[in-house]
């Protein structure tokens, strides 16, 4: 091995000092020849004879120089470089193949890259703390239910005191509190970590100012204190150096600031506020809302995860205070900290899941790469002369195959580069979506940059793609007769597109046609709302989510009392807001119009369509709205009556429906007086016969105008839904109103939290981003499939023409009309393609019947199948046009001479 390395190093040096070493070698050979010559002259030869003999004995000088250069340097670097240059030139030359093949490869490699990057993001986080990968979570795990259960305080304390394999054992729970600083600035909900003081010891991060939490703070009688993050210190306290001792109100409690943590510190998840976890002393780890506390620890020096798991298993769990549910099988377990935060998962299961998904993503390469392989095979065959000539000049088959492989690899590498850009974009989207859905932003360990592993995985995919798309056709095209005989040099190719390749092209056409209609409907369904707009002045509306602090609600003895408080606050808020100048209306509903949840329903007397409860026709949105909702949004009543005072009783059964609901579900008959009930709501099926029947009392116009489906409205009295969605009609200055809204809410009840305060058009726009990215991805995939089909048809036709050039020539020479000849020649290929297309249409029709795209967000486009067929025929004709023209240009005399 050492010798091998020495040789490689020497060769590497030799590669870069080629000129010097060449001169050196030439001098050495010259010396050799001179010495040999003199020697021979001494032994009686004439000088002329001696010189000739010396040269003969030494051997061919040029070959010797070449051989020594190969022995001294790294000849394959030159070969590789040459192949790369050739590859780039081929990419430019056959730009059609570059475009089609590159797009196909980009789609699949991009998919792989995005999947891998997301896995890597979620499951491969290591804590950016000192020795962060030794931080673990301890859990009470239910083996039967496959989920985490609450850890009892008794168990927590026992683990903390008895376990030797872990240290700094602590616990936290993540809660949200309405924030207000003492200077009266209005606040919004912020994530707060209630943590044991050991959390700061475990993190090994010293505070910037003041002190961290200490054990004394956890006592019930201790004064409420808070440690704040750097950002909070900067933004809320203007980086006041004397911040220690100032106060912050979180929810109902005023806390004294005792410390400021340095920038970037966010342990345990994404926190900037840390208060002591007093519950650990007073009874239970979980909080009132069922948020289970998390127990964390650090592995003791020298202890492995398995070692800690073993000790924990031996220690076991204490018998629960209340008898366990019969179907539970509890045991304690230890997990890497970030993995535990990813969800209730089994480490082994997830590893398997990841492997299977990555395998699937890898296998996804095969179909498009096989398609690209057809195209590359076709191109390779047209370059037979070049290869035959090179072979005749001494290139080995391996050398030629290597060159073809590198050419494809260049293409795949380009695709991989784009794929990495896509993966980066996906990570940015992931960050935006996590930041939006998780208050406080993404967990601090999540690294949204591309990891080395992702780059390596993508590189692996690129090589594999090049093997499938480049190596296979290269081996096939350079095998057998081409290289043994040099017939190809005569310019006539005996190659044909074999049955397998032809079948692939036909299957590709079928697939394109089968997928095209659904894809069009999906894309249209996804972007329709955004393209057509809401149909009303959404920018005039300001929306917000209303919610009471969990702490405050938990503080109330019985749930109805909490609802009464919420109802009162809500009613008063609406009253005050309506009185505000510039506000022309305020309404409360369960959901923002247009963003309501879906349910599957049944209309009394209307038989369920085929496809049962999965039929898209029975999918409707549902909302609960207050008495002024339709007035505020200017929605006219089209038939029947609106909600009356009596409808707002709890058990009222009146519902309103929109126009689309009537059109889709009831048709021409009168909807008034009809009864409807839920079959499936929020993914949970309702027992047939057990759910309540509601009576349709009126019909309203669609809101938004281009509704994605039927909508059903229930009456909503204040306090009946929590959280609730508030909408204000404000005219132009909705930003100024947002500030005023917070102030009013704060003054009314500090426990009332306002979240997602946004203009309605912003709400719609935010939702459109994801839709547009989804639609664009789908459109690109479909485009790639179509291009591959077109290119496949083109290749098939080219082969047909090339193979039968001579026949075309002869028949033209005998006076046949070129067009007749062509149609005869293309008949077979067209027949095959037509069969594929027919199969595709059949599959498309079956798909649209059995798997309606409406059920997954598509939108029915009338006549899409005939249109798609027509489009494919045109694509096919265009693709066949080039080869056909070439066929028509065959000169009879030339074609005959070729034979």
């Amino acid at each position: 091995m050492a010798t091998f390395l020495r040789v490689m190093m020497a060769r590497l040096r030799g590669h870069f000092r080629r000129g010097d070493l060449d001169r050196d070698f030439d001098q050495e050979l010259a010396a050799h020849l001179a010495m040999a010559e003199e020697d021979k002259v001494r032994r009686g030869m004439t000088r002329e004879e001696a010189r000739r003999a010396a040269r003969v004995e030494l051997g061919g000088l040029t070959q010797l120089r070449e051989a020594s250069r190969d022995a001294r340097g790294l000849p394959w670097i030159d070969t590789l470089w040459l192949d790369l240059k050739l590859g780039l030139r081929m990419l430019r030359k056959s730009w059609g193949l570059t475009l089609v093949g590159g797009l196909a490869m980009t789609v699949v490699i991009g998919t792989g890259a995005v999947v891998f990057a997301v896995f890597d993001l979620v499951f491969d986080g290591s804590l950016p703390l000192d020795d962060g990968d030794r931080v673990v979570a301890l859990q009470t795990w239910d083996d039967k239910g496959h989920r985490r259960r609450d850890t009892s305080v008794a168990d927590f304390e026992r683990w903390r005191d008895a376990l030797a394999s872990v240290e700094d054992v602590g616990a936290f729970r993540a809660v949200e509190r309405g924030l207000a600083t003492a200077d009266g600035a209005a606040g919004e909900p912020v994530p707060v970590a209630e943590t044991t003081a050991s959390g700061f010891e475990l993190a090994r991060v010293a505070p910037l100012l003041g002190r961290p939490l200490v054990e004394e703070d956890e006592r019930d009688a201790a004064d409420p204190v808070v440690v704040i993050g750097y950002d909070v210190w900067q933004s809320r306290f203007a980086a006041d150096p004397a911040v220690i001792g100032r106060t912050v109100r979180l929810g109902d409690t005023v806390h004294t600031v005792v410390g400021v943590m340095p920038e970037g510190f966010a342990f345990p998840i994404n926190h900037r506020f840390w208060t002591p976890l007093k519950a650990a002393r007073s009874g239970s780890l979980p909080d009132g809302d069922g948020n289970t506390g998390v127990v964390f620890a650090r592995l003791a020096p020298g202890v492995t995860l398995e070692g800690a798991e073993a000790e924990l298993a031996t220690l076991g769990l204490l018998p629960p205070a209340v008898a366990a549910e019969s179907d539970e099988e509890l045991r304690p377990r230890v997990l890497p900290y970030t993995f535990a935060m990813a969800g209730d998962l089994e480490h082994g299961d997830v590893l398997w899941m990841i492997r299977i998904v990555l395998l699937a993503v890898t296998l996804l390469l095969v179909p498009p790469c096989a398609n690209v392989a057809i195209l590359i095979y076709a191109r390779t065959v047209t370059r037979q002369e070049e290869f035959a000539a090179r072979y005749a000049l001494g290139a080995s088959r391996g050398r030629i195959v290597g060159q073809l492989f590198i050419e494809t690899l260049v293409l795949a590498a380009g695709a991989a580069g784009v794929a990495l850009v896509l993966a980066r974009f996906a990570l940015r989207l992931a960050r935006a979506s996590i930041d939006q859905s998780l208050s406080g932003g993404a967990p601090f360990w999540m690294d949204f940059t591309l990891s080395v592993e992702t780059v390596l995985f993508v590189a692996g995919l690129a090589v594999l793609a090049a093997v499938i798309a480049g190596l296979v056709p290269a081996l096939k095209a350079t095998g057998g007769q081409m290289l043994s005989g040099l017939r190809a040099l005569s310019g006539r190719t005996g190659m044909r597109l074999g049955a397998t390749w032809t079948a692939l092209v036909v299957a590709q056409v079928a697939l394109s046609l089968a997928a095209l209609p659904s894809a069009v409907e999906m894309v249209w369904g996804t972007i329709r709302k955004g393209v057509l707009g809401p149909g009303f002045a959404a920018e005039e509306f300001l929306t917000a989510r209303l919610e009471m602090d969990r702490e405050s609600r938990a503080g109330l003895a019985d749930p109805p009392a909490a609802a009464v408080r919420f109802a009162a606050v809500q009613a008063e808020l609406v009253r005050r807001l309506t009185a505000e100048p510039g506000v022309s209306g305020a309404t409360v509903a369960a959901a923002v119009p247009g963003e309501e949840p879906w349910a599957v329903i049944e209309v009394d007397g209307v038989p369920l369509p085929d496809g049962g409860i999965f039929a898209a026709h029975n999918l409707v949105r549902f909302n609960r709205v207050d008495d002024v909702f339709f007035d505020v949004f200017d929605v006219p009543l089209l038939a029947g009556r609106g909600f009356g005072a009596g409808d707002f009783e709890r058990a009222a059964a009146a519902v309103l429906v929109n126009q689309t609901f009537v059109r889709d579900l009831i048709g021409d008959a009168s909807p008034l007086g009809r009864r409807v009930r839920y079959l499936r709501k929020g993914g949970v099926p309702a027992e047939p016969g057990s759910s309540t029947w509601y009576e349709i009392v009126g019909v309203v116009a669609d809101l938004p105008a281009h509704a994605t489906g039927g909508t059903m409205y229930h009456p909503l009295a204040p306090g009946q839904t929590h959280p609730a969605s508030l909408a204000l009609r404000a005219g132009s200055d909705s930003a100024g109103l947002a500030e005023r809204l917070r102030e009013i809410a704060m003054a009314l009840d500090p426990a009332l939290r306002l979240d997602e305060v946004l203009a309605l058009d912003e709400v719609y726009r935010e939702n459109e981003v994801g839709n547009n990215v989804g639609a664009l991805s789908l459109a690109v995939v479909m485009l790639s499939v179509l291009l591959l089909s077109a290119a496949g048809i083109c290749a098939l036709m080219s082969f047909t023409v090339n193979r039968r050039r001579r026949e075309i020539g002869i028949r033209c020479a005998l006076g046949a009309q070129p067009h007749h000849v062509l149609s005869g020649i293309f008949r077979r290929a067209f027949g095959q393609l037509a069969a594929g297309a027919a199969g595709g249409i059949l599959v498309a029709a079956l798909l649209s019947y059995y798997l309606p795209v409406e059920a997954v967000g598509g939108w029915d486009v009338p006549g899409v199948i005939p249109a798609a067929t027509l489009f494919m025929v045109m694509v096919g004709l265009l693709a066949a046009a080039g080869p056909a023209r070439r066929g028509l240009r065959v000169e009879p005399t030339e074609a005959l001479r070729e034979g």
Partner: protein
Amino acid sequence: MTDTRSPILQGTLDLMVLKTLEQMGPLHGYGIARRIEQVGQDAIVVNQGTIYLCLVRLVQKKWIRAQWGTSENNRKAKFYSLTAAGRRQLQAETESWERVSGVIGRVLQPAAGR
């Protein structure tokens, strides 16, 4: 006329060059080629060019080192000499060669005696 000379056995040229340098001390390529031809008494074919390729390989392995010097008739020439690693390698290869040739000799012996 048939050529009764044998080509050099694959892999043995390295051994011959190393041995030559051990016996003769620092020597240039031409000297090495001549020496092998003399010792072989024209029974083997030495392509002199391949000796230079062999020298490149041995230098890369650091079994020999090269240095420009002056030849006996005052000509500038590249001289090769054995390194310590080369000496060890020579010893190992010599032992291996003797073992193998002994085995081959014993295998061929009975056939020759029949």
